[in-house]
Each structure stands twice: as C-alpha cells, then as structure tokens.
C-alpha cells in the first residue's frame, strides 16, 4: 500500500515539475507549481513530518503562490517563445 502511494506521489512530483517547465502560460505554470508544492506536502505528511508539511502548505504553496500571482498581474502572463 505504502509503496503504491509512494509510486503515485513520486511520479506526480516529476510530472508536475516537468509541466511547470513546459507551460507557456505563466499563470498555469504558477498554479501547477503550487500543485507540486502540495504534492510535496502530502509526501512529507506521509513521511512523518507534519510540521514541515503544514509550513510548506501555508508558506511554500500559499504565500509564495499569491506573491507570484500578484507579480503576474503586474507584469505579464505570457512567456515569449
């Protein structure tokens, strides 16, 4: 069971990280990045680090994402090819 959870989560991590790199729409990239952080949160919760998981969820996925969104609103949403 645990191995299945690990395998799913780890592949999700790689998939999200690569999608962040590939997304041309910056808004999408930021949202996927926040998904990446949240996946990481689950992994850490699973690995006996609830404190770290909560901090990452609040700071890494929450505050960082909001700051990124504000920046996109003030700059640009498209990545030039």
């Amino acid at each position, binding site marked *: 069971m645990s191995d299945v959870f690990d395998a799913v989560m780890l592949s999700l991590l790689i998939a999200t990280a690569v999608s962040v790199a590939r997304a041309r729409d910056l808004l999408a990239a930021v949202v996927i990045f926040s998904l990446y952080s949240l996946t990481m949160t689950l992994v850490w919760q699973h690995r006996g680090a609830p*404190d770290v998981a*909560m*901090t990452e969820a609040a*700071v890494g996925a929450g*505050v960082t994402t*909001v700051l990124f969104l504000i920046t996109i609103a003030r700059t640009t949403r498209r990545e030039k090819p």
Partner: protein
Amino acid sequence: MKPWSLLLVLLVALPLVVGVVNLPPHDAPDAPIHTGVGVRYLARGVEETGNKNLVTAVLLNYRGFDTFFEVVVIFTALAAVLALPRGSAADPGGAPAAAAKAANGSDIVPVSPVVSYVVRLMAPFMAMFALAMLFRGHVTPGGGFQAAAVFAAIFIALGLVLGPTRVAELVPDDWRPWLQGAAPLAFALIAAIGWRLTGAFLGFPTDDHTAQEAMGLFLEVGIALGGGVILARLFVEMET
C-alpha cells in the same frame, strides 16, 4: 532544448547522484542521523524543554539561535522591498511610467460579491485556526510560523476584497515599526531574560517548566505577529 544548458545540468547531476546514492540508507534505524545528536533530543527533549513536539523543542530551545536569525531573514526581505525605488517621480531611481500608472488610480480587479462575502465570513474562523495552531504548537504540529502564514493569508484575502490600502490601515502607523520587528525583538528580549536567569544567552531554565513554557509562548506569539505582519506588508508593498 538548449544543448549547453543540458550539458551543464548533467555536469551538476552526476556528482549529486554519486553523492546521494553513497549516503547511508535513509530508512535504517542505525543510520548516523538516528544515532547522532538527535538521540539526546528524543530521549530527554520533553524533560529538558517542556515541549512534547520535538521539532518545536529544536526550533526554540536547542537551536533557538538559528530561528532567531531565520526571523531576521524575513525582516531582511521586508527591508529589501522597502529600500527599493518607489514609483514616485521625486524618487531618483523611480521610473516615470510607474508614476503615471500610480496616478491612474488603483488597478484592482472588481471582486464578485459572493467571494467578498465568503472571505469576510471566513476571516474570523481562519484567525481562530491560526490561534489554535499558535497556542497548541508545543504539543501538536504547528507553531508560530504556520500561524504567521495563516494570519498573512487572512490579510491577503481581505486585501484582495477590500483593496490593499484599506487593509494596511488596520495597522496604525505608530505601531508598524514595532510589529514588523516583533519576531527578532521577542527573541532578543527572551535572549536577555535567559541570560539573566541562567547565565547563558538564550538559555531556558530547564528545571522550571512554567517559566520555560511562558518564554516559549512569548517567542511563538512574537514570531506569529511579526511574521504575519511582514508577509502581509510584502503583499501590500507589491500591490501598490
């Protein structure tokens, strides 16, 4: 794909892989990480610090000096953002374009009344959640930083609904410098008190659990308050 970047990444990846696969297996109970200094924290942490959550014990007691400068790092981020040129024309570093944009009035996107209502309804409950994390941090997961992030989230959510300037008014101007510095100042104060009580900088009286708990709580409140205000201020500074 840019070949040079790929080559660089591979050049970095190779040693890293060699480094990590040669580490002791991470799950094993006899790995150095589980036989090193951590043994004492697990064996005597509760008795020496009064914290059942040993992560909090490490953060505030054993390695409180690190946490002191961690909160200094967030303060540095705020000082950095405040030291950067503003959009005003009087500012030698400021650009005229930004000044024009600022004169144009706020560029806040109108928020739907439903979202606005929900945010205002949720704010007190989120605050309660943050307080629960703050005051139960020594026995359950959570603590000052997490509470700070939730406080900041409340600020930011309200800011999106009401506009950043109105949220900024929630903190009186006279208090602002003290609230922003709350976390490092709390640490400096506790360090001095510990020095007085135990003769060691940032020392906690190991035999007096009431005093220990009070000092720990003071630090957590300081971190939550200072961290929350700084994160919220960063948001306001970037929005305006």
